[in-house]
């Protein structure tokens, strides 16, 4: 039987409840409920939890932390509020009461703060996988996330929650001031504050506006620059590579087939739709890229993928960078087999592309050659990853692509 350890992967705070549940094979919700009830009955649950956090050693975190979301979170919040209210009412009935001027404003502030916090940390929906390896990464970077049908409703929900939270906090302030007979004095202070804000606003408004405009322009320029880089990387990987193949080919039928395939791919990319036959997950996307490189260059590409995950724009960028690395290995690797090894864990995605060719010095690549600099290194950096190019242990070249972070 396993030893008792805190389960941080499935825990909400320190993983004490999840660890106990895992150790004894029971439902974590049952353990959490026991702690909530113990907390309601005199606060023993909090002491026991903190003790467990201190005494029980932490297990290895292997996955994403799970917090209740959606309707579950709302129910837990309302339920906890009702339990707290029952404790307050019990205290009041027993004559243990601080003051209405403190307790009710405090309850309002806590409720309002919880709503504001929840509204501000509303999870942004993940972009839907497009199933376009390469093409997705090559699409121009969109400054505004692609709209999904639920987005407006989600935004309205978050805004309304935040609005109710702010109203509750303001109401708490008024309740406190009213109960302590300080409302008149607060009104004077409020007026003075408003006057000060207006005066400072008139003085500093031009500078603030200029700063905001400058920041907006800088952001727009950065986005345009990224879009240009993405378009350049796409054109390099698709059109330029095809033109190079066309120049080397002396078979009119093969040239026509290459041109038709390139036209279809380019039209799909321009229309923002998935290209025909593109996969929606990492492993088949890498295998499809390898098959393409094999067909185009006649060099065997061996692919091994450990684990898998759905394609999102960042993972598509890794596939596109790996494809470019495979193409380079096929073109300059002296005809040797190209090995591709991808390892997909909950924390990171790593892809290695190796060849046994003569190798090259990345620093010696001319500035006008975009393959390594933009299609591999630049593309990985634009999507939050990194690329490393070095000599392989058995000779040749090794390209390592790393994309860290839970997905």
């Amino acid at each position, binding site marked *: 039987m396993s030893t008792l350890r805190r389960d941080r992967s499935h825990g909400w705070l320190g993983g004490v409840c999840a660890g106990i549940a895992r150790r004894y094979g029971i439902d974590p*919700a*049952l353990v959490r409920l026991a702690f909530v009830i113990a907390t309601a009955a005199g606060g023993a649950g909090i002491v026991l939890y903190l003790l467990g956090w201190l005494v029980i050693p932490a297990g290895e975190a292997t996955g994403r932390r799970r917090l209740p979301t959606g309707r579950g979170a709302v129910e837990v919040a309302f*339920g906890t*509020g009702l*339990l707290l209210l*029952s404790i307050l009412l*019990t205290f009041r*009935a027993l004559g243990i009461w601080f003051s209405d001027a403190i307790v009710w404003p405090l309850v309002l502030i806590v409720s309002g703060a919880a709503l504001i916090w929840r509204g501000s940390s509303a999870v942004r929906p993940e972009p839907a996988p497009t199933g376009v390896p390469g093409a997705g990464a090559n699409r121009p970077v969109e400054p505004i996330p692609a709209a999904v049908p639920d987005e407006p409703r989600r935004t309205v929900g978050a805004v309304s929650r935040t609005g109710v939270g702010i109203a509750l906090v303001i109401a708490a302030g008024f309740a406190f001031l009213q109960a302590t007979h300080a409302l008149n004095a607060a009104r004077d202070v409020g007026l003075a504050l408003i006057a000060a804000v207006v005066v400072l606003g008139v003085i500093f408004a031009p500078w603030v506006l200029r700063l905001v405009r400058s920041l907006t322009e800088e952001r727009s320029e950065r986005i345009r620059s990224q879009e240009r880089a993405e378009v350049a990387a796409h054109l390099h990987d698709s059109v330029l590579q095809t033109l190079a193949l066309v120049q080397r080919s002396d078979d009119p039928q093969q040239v026509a087939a290459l041109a038709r395939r390139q036209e279809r791919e380019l039209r799909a990319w321009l229309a923002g739709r998935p290209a025909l036959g593109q996969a929606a997950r990492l492993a088949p996307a890498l295998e499809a890229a390898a098959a393409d490189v094999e067909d185009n260059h006649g060099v065997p590409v061996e692919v091994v993928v450990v684990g898998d995950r759905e394609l999102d724009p960042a993972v598509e960028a890794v596939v596109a960078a790996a494809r470019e690395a495979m193409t380079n290995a096929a073109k300059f690797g002296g005809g040797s087999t190209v090995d591709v090894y991808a390892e997909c864990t909950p924390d990171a995605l790593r892809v290695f592309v190796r060849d046994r060719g003569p190798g090259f010095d990345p620093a010696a690549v001319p500035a006008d050659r975009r393959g390594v600099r933009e299609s591999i290194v630049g593309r990985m950096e634009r999507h939050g990853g990194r690329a490393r190019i070095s000599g392989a242990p058995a000779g040749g070249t090794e390209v390592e692509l790393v994309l860290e972070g839970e997905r």
Partner: protein
Amino acid sequence: MRAGPDIRALVAGLAVLALGGMLLLDALDLIDLTFAVFAPVACAAAGAILVANGLSR
């Protein structure tokens, strides 16, 4: 494979049992069930049901 207990149903059942027991004791004049006593118990029962429901999702 043995199915585990349904936490939501268990907690809801216990809460309703507790409320029903209090009402029964009041009807038998064994306790004096005033609003000051009943309100926190009702809040605690509803809160426990909601928390159990939310945690089980």
